[in-house]
């Protein structure tokens, strides 16, 4: 490897020996092509004309009136595919194409990364396999259907709790046996180096745009930036542009599970709030685990946040104190979903609803001049069935 893939003590590439040559090949290609004008030109064109970048930064006036301070939404929900995931799948998909790979595999939790990979697989004419936990297949069936319509094969994963962690396990196993012709299109800012670096690179357009749009619209930087954190790809995407702006407070919001369980082990996915450092999926990072180091089960209403690990850079940002990480409960996310829908006519993904929930919890605590950007990482169409189950429309 050319780089060590470390964020302080976190990160690295703790993988079986057989995967090392594949990661080296990936790192080499990433460094080469992202410095290549032809590659970057093709990607910029796709981001603009295929995916719909730049996405708007929207001043949510009615929501702001309720909160008592100014809330701006970075509208990644409007990106093609319905979430920020397309930024990364176009980037990595193009990388796969430039590397001459013919097959794509990906893991998915909520199905947004799986869908964005399936779309890119169709776009580039590549055979695509999506690994998805059985629990997630059941609760995100609309996305499963969309992936299949795009021509992808969806492979159900039975192990563990049938969620994102288990999907990553099986995708890694499949890749181990098929490294020569298959590109593993990793969706989260987690996993072994170089994935956290690659995902951050392709997602950083969110933050770059948001920072500039905020200055254009308000004449200054925001006071706070908030995003939900599962593995942490949308969060690192928007945070990255503001890390050096010392006056901008940055908050990552994790899945606290149901409020009644009070962050009891096995009943939430607030890795940075309740975890300790360990090694999973190729990376040294905070993890939810027992004393021996067995990885804990997790629970969240939102499949995309239901993960016992977190991207290594988030662990670093927690320890350095640059970013504050807080949990939001399922019930608060549902409240936020309903609130944004009713006040602004925007259906947020349940993942993004966690970030909205945290920001709304600051009601009455911030001055009216305060401006907050929330990364609205995805749209909530996929979650309507879940919301209906918990909060039936009268």
């Amino acid at each position: 490897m050319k780089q060590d893939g470390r964020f302080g003590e976190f990160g690295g590439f703790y993988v079986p020996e057989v995967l090392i040559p594949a990661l080296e090949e990936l790192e080499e290609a990433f460094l080469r092509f992202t410095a290549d004008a032809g590659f970057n030109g093709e990607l910029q064109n796709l981001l603009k004309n295929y995916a719909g970048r730049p996405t708007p930064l929207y001043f949510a006036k009615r929501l702001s009136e309720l909160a008592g301070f100014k809330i701006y939404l970075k509208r990644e929900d409007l990106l093609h595919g319905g979430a920020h995931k397309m930024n990364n799948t176009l980037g990595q998909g193009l990388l796969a194409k430039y590397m001459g790979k013919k097959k794509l595999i990906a893991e998915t939790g909520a199905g947004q990364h799986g869908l964005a990979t399936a779309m890119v697989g169709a776009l580039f004419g590549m055979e695509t396999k999506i690994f998805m936990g059985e629990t997630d297949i059941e609760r995100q069936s609309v996305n499963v259907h969309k992936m299949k319509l795009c021509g992808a094969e969806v492979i159900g994963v039975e192990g563990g709790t049938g969620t994102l962690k288990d999907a990553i396990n099986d995708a890694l196993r499949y890749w181990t046996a098929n490294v020569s012709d298959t590109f593993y299109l990793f969706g989260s800012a987690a996993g072994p180096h170089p994935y956290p670096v690659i995902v951050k690179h392709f997602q950083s357009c969110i933050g770059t745009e948001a920072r500039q749009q905020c200055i254009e619209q308000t004449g200054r930087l925001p006071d706070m930036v908030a995003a939900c954190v599962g593995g942490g790809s949308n969060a690192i995407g928007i945070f990255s542009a503001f890390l050096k702006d010392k006056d901008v407070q940055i908050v990552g919001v994790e899945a606290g599970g149901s409020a009644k369980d009070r962050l009891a082990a096995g009943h939430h996915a607030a890795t940075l709030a309740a975890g300790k450092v360990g090694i999973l999926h190729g990376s040294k990072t905070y993890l939810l685990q027992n004393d021996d180091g067995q990885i804990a089960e997790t629970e969240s209403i939102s499949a995309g946040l239901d993960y016992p690990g977190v991207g290594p850079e988030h662990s670093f940002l927690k320890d350095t104190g640059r970013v504050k990480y807080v949990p939001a409960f399922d019930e608060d996310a549902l409240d936020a979903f309903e609130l944004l829908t009713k006040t602004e006519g925007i259906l947020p993904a349940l993942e993004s609803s966690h970030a909205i929930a945290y920001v709304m919890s600051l009601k009455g605590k911030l001055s009216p001049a305060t401006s907050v950007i929330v990364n609205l990482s995805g749209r909530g169409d996929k979650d309507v069935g879940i919301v209906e189950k918990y909060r039936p429309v009268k």
Partner: protein
Amino acid sequence: MKTYKELFAQLKRPALIPFFVIGDPDYETSLEIVKRAIDAGADILELGIPFSDPIADGPTIQKADVRALAGGMTVSKALDFIRQIKQYKDIPIGLLLYYNLVYQKGIKEFFKDFYRAGVNSILIADLSIDDADEIAPAAREAGLDTVFMVTPNADEQRIKQIASQTSGFIYAVSLLGVTGVREGLSDTIEGFIKKLKKLTATPVCVGFGISKPEHAAAVARAGADGVIIGSKIVRIIEDNLNNKKKMLSELAAFITECKKAIEKAR
């Protein structure tokens, strides 16, 4: 405590190395299984501590991990288990596990405790030679041999790098993939073993996918110093969970057959 060096010097043929997940399906049965394997002719034991997320393992060993964890296996019980095996017979033991289990206990303490219990070497499935510095010095200090895996896609430079950090034996992975029972043996295995033997004087033991006595014989003929059989053995346990007597006799019969095949191969 018998070392790999002593054992390989003594044997005039390749070593037979069965793999078991400690505590599969439960502590007591697992103990009986391993003792029976020793009686049937195992030369070295490769023992795994079960992990919740074994990314280098196929479905058979994943299920064994689930059974063992459901049966209450822990790191401290694994220590007891190894002590009991060593009381039964002084047989070299290689420990195969995932890094997080070592990391949580503390690398130095983990190695010291397991060496004292009777383990000869540690192999961490998700730690490559690139991070050998994190574990190898502590392992040597504790008295352990350091076993690393080498795979068919490694170039000559990498093989040499791996060999330089390895003591005891090199674990040669026969194929690109995870552990599992397979019908045929990889057709590149013979060339791979010969290449390794040319590049290192450290004994070469071959594992992954070796599922039949014929496979064991072929690997032995190709020049391997040891044959590691994992998933096929774990599968015999899985297939006979409701009949312990049959499980033990099938296991013993399979190990005996493999041993004969290896002996005849040279």
